[in-house]
């Protein structure tokens, strides 16, 4: 049996959330939800794992901090010691306060850019890429659940019947 994709279209985020709860209670697995904005409380209902982007951001930040310190040590201390206002130019430690603002800024820069790029790569939404959302109106005023028959024990008709118990606007089935 081939995998069929069922799209259930809603026009309200709260209705979608309640409907998702209803069909998840009946044992249906929801593959994904497309919506114009994040829906509060939806993640645990459809079983999304907590994002690990915070950990990635921390690592990028630390990389930025190390890069900045290494760079400034090389430019200002090691390669060409610069005497600015008589500040100690023979060691990084003794001159550290001077370098803190730039280290901080560079850490933030790396964390922010790294986080944004990781996010876009992970979602495959780099600039210029074609959108992969099944319904363009999910960027405006529609909320869509994507359910695969392969993920579930129930067949297409059963899932449709369950969805019809909710305030669904339209159900659309796509064959692969």
């Amino acid at each position: 049996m081939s995998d069929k994709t069922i799209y259930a279209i809603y026009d309200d985020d709260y209705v979608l959330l309640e409907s998702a709860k209803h069909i998840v209670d009946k044992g249906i697995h929801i593959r994904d939800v497309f919506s114009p904005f994040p829906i509060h409380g939806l993640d645990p209902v459809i079983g999304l794992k907590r994002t690990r982007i915070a950990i990635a951001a921390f690592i990028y930040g630390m990389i930025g901090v190390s890069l900045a310190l290494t760079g400034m040590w090389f430019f200002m201390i090691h390669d060409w010691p610069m005497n600015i206002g008589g500040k100690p130019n023979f060691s990084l430690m003794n001159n550290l306060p001077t370098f803190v603002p730039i280290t901080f800024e560079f850490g933030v820069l790396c964390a922010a850019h790294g986080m944004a790029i990781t996010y876009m790569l992970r979602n495959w939404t780099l600039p210029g890429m074609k959108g992969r959302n099944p319904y363009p109106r999910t960027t405006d005023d529609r909320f869509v659940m994507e359910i695969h028959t392969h993920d579930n024990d129930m067949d297409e008709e059963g899932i449709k019947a369950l969805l019809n118990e909710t305030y669904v606007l339209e159900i659309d089935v796509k064959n692969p």
Partner: protein
Amino acid sequence: MEFTISNKAKLTTLILVVVGLASLLLGIFTSHGHHMSQQLWANLLVNGYFFFTISLAALFFIALQYVSEMAWGVTTQRVFQAIMAFMPIGAVVLLIVFAASSMHWNHLYHWMADGVMDPASENYDKLIHGKEGYLNQPFFWVRTLLYIAVWIYFARWFRKKSLEEDKLELNGATSPIYGKAIFKGVLFIAFFAYTSSSSAWDWIMAIDVHWFSTMFGWYCFSGMWVSMMIVAVVLVQYLKRNGYMKEVNSSHIHDLGKWMFAISCLWSYIWFSQFMLIWYSNIPEEVTYYVQRFEDYQLLYLGTFCVNFFLPFFVLMSRDAKRNGIFLVPIALIVFIGHWVDVLVMVLPGTMFEHGGLGAIEIGMFLTFLGVFIYTVLRALSKAPLMTKNHPMYDESLHLHH
């Protein structure tokens, strides 16, 4: 639900006071005596200021909650009200210290000494004389009494009206007190914006009378704010563990943790900015403050910064740590001591010079004040229900979730 102070809590505060007094006496009898009186007065100022400003910051936070129409904090509002309760005791301690300074019973404020402003005297100091327009006894007392009187007026008003609000019969209407409280909050914050800085100049910065820093007011302000958030975090954890405050959920705990984390960063930012600008420009009249601290108080001074910044920054950065008492409480307690040491190192170098340090007298005085402070706060907490009624945002706060 009404809170009652358990016998265990009473005993703990009593033990703190007894151990504190014992340590204080031990310190007095084993010390060599030259600077004893000065040391006691300096410590009274440290602890009076530290614990008074914690209460003051709670008042500020309540005013801020009203002004910003903050909803999440309504379930913990009584905790902040209870923390305000130490204000009168702290104020009395501070006033005693200042009165003693005025009467030359101690030498905390060099500008109050005889002859400093008199060109004929051998104590004459031209630089201090130049500041006479601001640093003179009558004006100092007008300012001090004004700050304390106005702050305590607002503290009493917010507490009284909150208790009155509980008794209202509203039948669905919005509490009339809420709008008034927002207005009072605006007035208080406008007043506090100036006086939080100027009180720090008058009471603390004037110790190092030749020195000045435009960031000093903010430095003290962020310090008192983070110490107060720590007290609130620990108190809420304590109440929850003892079965009170069922209404406070993990999102409230998370928000309190976020405040503690954020204000720790604010304090570190201001500490470092003040230090770096002075270090970089290296002007003799500014840099003396740091020279003194680096020569005689290096471990306490730099250690405090490391503890107060790196510990909360790295441990409390993750979301899970901010929601979990196992991380929150130990970090909070360590950083609380860190901020007390911070106030200690604001006061001691200018009053005890190279003879100051962290000894039995300092620890004893701290524990005594801590015991009294905890008991006062718990007693205030037991005098009213733990949850406010009729606050328009109460229901929204109950459903806080993120």
